[in-house]
């Protein structure tokens, strides 16, 4: 009898221990950068996870995007990485060796990859064929137009595929809007090589060869590269675009917010924020065509880190963020496009038309663009070192031909560093 009682007590104690373990309160550190809309959205996603797993809560560490690299590196070097962090497409490559392996949590690499857009390069979120990052949302380099100024000038902009304008028509339209409305500039363009590259592909150019072993922009594609950059320089020198932004370090956003530009070539990820700042109507128009349509895919990812406190739970949270439910909460609330193939239209109220045009631009982005920019090990160098080259061409410090040659040298150096590390 004593033995039976002792056994029962042991079993009860074990059961209590198991229940206790199962419900151990867990707090995961989440390093996140973003505006108010994005911060609210990640809270909603994490709340949805907590609703399913009440013992798991989150400590969101907010950081500005510019400092996120330094912050992650410091936390990693200090041996206390965050459980989860948001990283951009140019950062994701840096942290792959330190990332959590999510493969088993998302149903395997093949299944995971098949759930995303077809022209997405899966090498961006895999490492040694293992899934190490979850795509968060996709954006494209697009064209936002000041609807009021276009209407005032009586100029139409394309909102249907069959009306897509050529580069000549596009430039003529911008000049007309500028002349008729008296706005300061026809076009603004984010200061970023990634953004500039959009027109490189539209002009038929590219940076790297298919196998990414050599730079072709100054060899087989030299003519197209020069033509694209020459057009960009001409737009500045003619006064259609402000030199203060690309050369003088001025803010394109400030000019846009002031309603002094007809159009803004920018990443479309944050266009809903314009709504809170500007007092004019705006819209997304299709970008122009020279020899082909193109955009440049950009986006953000979510990663976990191997040495974090609760790796298994972090991986489970990331699997939830990958699921249609988690993905759709974030993308819907932030007015973003989802990377998921089954989530093209999330019904974003009045932004739906604009975002579906964005999606169409992405669907019509050629391989060359994806090949060049979904190459996270090299893009940080392109972004940092090629920008001054384009600026120098605009400022007239070097010819367009010299700039393309210099660009190619920098790109080749970046490739050499990459391949020598393999």
């Amino acid at each position, binding site marked *: 009898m004593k033995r039976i009682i002792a056994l029962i007590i042991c079993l009860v104690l074990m059961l209590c221990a198991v229940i206790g373990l199962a419900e151990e309160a867990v707090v995961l550190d989440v390093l996140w950068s973003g505006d108010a809309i994005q911060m609210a959205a990640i809270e909603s996603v994490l709340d949805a996870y907590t609703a399913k797993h009440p013992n798991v809560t989150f400590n969101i560490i907010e950081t500005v995007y510019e400092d996120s*690299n*330094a912050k992650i*590196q410091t936390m*990693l*070097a200090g041996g206390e990485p965050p459980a989860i962090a948001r990283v951009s497409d140019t950062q994701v490559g*840096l*942290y792959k*060796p*330190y990332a959590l392996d999510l493969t088993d949590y998302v149903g395997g690499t093949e299944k995971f990859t098949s759930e995303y857009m077809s022209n997405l390069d899966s090498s961006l979120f895999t490492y040694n064929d293992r899934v190490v990052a979850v795509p968060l949302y996709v954006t494209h380099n697009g064209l936002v137009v000041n609807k009021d100024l276009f209407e005032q000038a009586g100029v139409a902009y394309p909102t249907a595929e069959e009306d897509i304008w050529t580069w000549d028509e596009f430039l003529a339209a911008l000049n007309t809007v500028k002349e008729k409305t008296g706005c*300061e500039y026809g076009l603004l363009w984010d200061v970023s090589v990634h953004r500039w590259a959009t027109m490189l592909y539209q002009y038929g150019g590219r940076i790297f060869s298919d196998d990414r072993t050599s730079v072709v922009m100054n060899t087989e594609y030299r003519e197209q590269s020069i033509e694209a950059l020459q057009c960009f320089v001409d737009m500045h020198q003619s006064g259609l675009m*402000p*030199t*203060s932004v690309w*050369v*003088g*370090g*001025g803010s394109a956003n*400030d*000019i846009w917010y*002031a309603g*002094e530009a007809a159009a803004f070539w920018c990443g479309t990820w944050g266009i809903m924020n314009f709504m809170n700042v500007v007092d004019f109507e705006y819209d997304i128009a299709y970008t122009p065509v020279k020899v082909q349509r193109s955009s440049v895919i950009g986006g953000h990812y979510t990663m976990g880190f191997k040495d974090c406190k609760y790796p298994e739970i972090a991986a489970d949270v990331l699997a939830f963020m990958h699921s249609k439910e988690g993905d759709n909460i974030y993308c819907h609330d932030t007015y973003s496009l989802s990377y998921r193939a089954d989530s093209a239209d999330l019904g974003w109220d009045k932004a739906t038309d604009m975002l579906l045009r964005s999606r169409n631009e992405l669907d019509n982005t050629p391989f060359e663009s994806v090949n060049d920019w979904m190459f996270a090990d090299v893009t*940080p*160098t392109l*972004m*940092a*070192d090629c920008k*001054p080259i384009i*600026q*120098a061409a605009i*400022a007239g*410090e070097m010819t367009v031909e010299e700039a393309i040659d210099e660009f190619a040298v920098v790109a080749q150096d970046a490739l050499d560093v990459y391949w020598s590390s393999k």
Partner: protein
Amino acid sequence: MKRKNRIAVSAGDKAAPYLFVAPNFVILTIFYGIPLAMGLIYSFTNYDGLMSFSQISFVGLKNYQTVLNQSAFIRAATNTLKYAVSIVPLMTVGALLLAWLTTLIKRAYWLRVLAYVPVTISAIAVGLIWRWVFDTDFGILNSMFYSLGLEAPRWLETKSLAFVVVLIATLWSRVGYFMVLYVSGIENISQQYYEAATIDGASLWQSFTRITIPLLKPTHVMVLILNVIEAFKAYALVYALTRGGPVNGTTMMIQHIYETSFAKMRMAQGNAMAMLLFFAILLLTIIQYALGKGGELE
């Protein structure tokens, strides 16, 4: 018994200075000494900022060779040197004259306060304030040009003008700090020298050049050393004002080091650059100290 006590007191006396120095020594070692040593070690390795110790390997002088062959590094170093050569004399002379003026004018405390207020503003805010003044599209200065129907200069789009704007902003924000050092030095000069000079018929300017300037030698040495160190470490103000542009025309060493280390994740190269900068500042400080004979009056 007396003898024993004397020995005990003597040992305590010997230990006292070390105990007083110990807290500072520990703090300096932890926050400066060890990071400096780590930086020096990393500069000879392939460290990328994230590797574990087992992955780090020594690469000799490779990082230093790479860095010294980099046109971007040479350009940043040249910009920094040009900036230091320009701002140090401007700041020193400006602070000295301002201090002299405020000691000449009765009840000039308000002038000192006015000159010192910008020192209390953060470097980033100073950069943004001056950007609002010189911005091509929205700057106060250019708005005045436009309202007068004049063509406005493109201050931040021309390398030489942007450089001048950086000097103006730096001078405005820091001259008050060095002025205070000079005011303290001037007020420590005995009035007897000036009274004797006045009896001998010396003018105000002669008193300034023959008495004030020579007797401020210890302050000159300190101001110059601090000024040079500040100039070589310039970053936040310049970055907020020009973003290092136009076309890297105002990119200083610290900005380049930061971008190399964190944007491109070449931490070892960044450390090599930081070491070069450290030894350059150290060398210049030693030279200034030696030339100024430690600030001793002759």
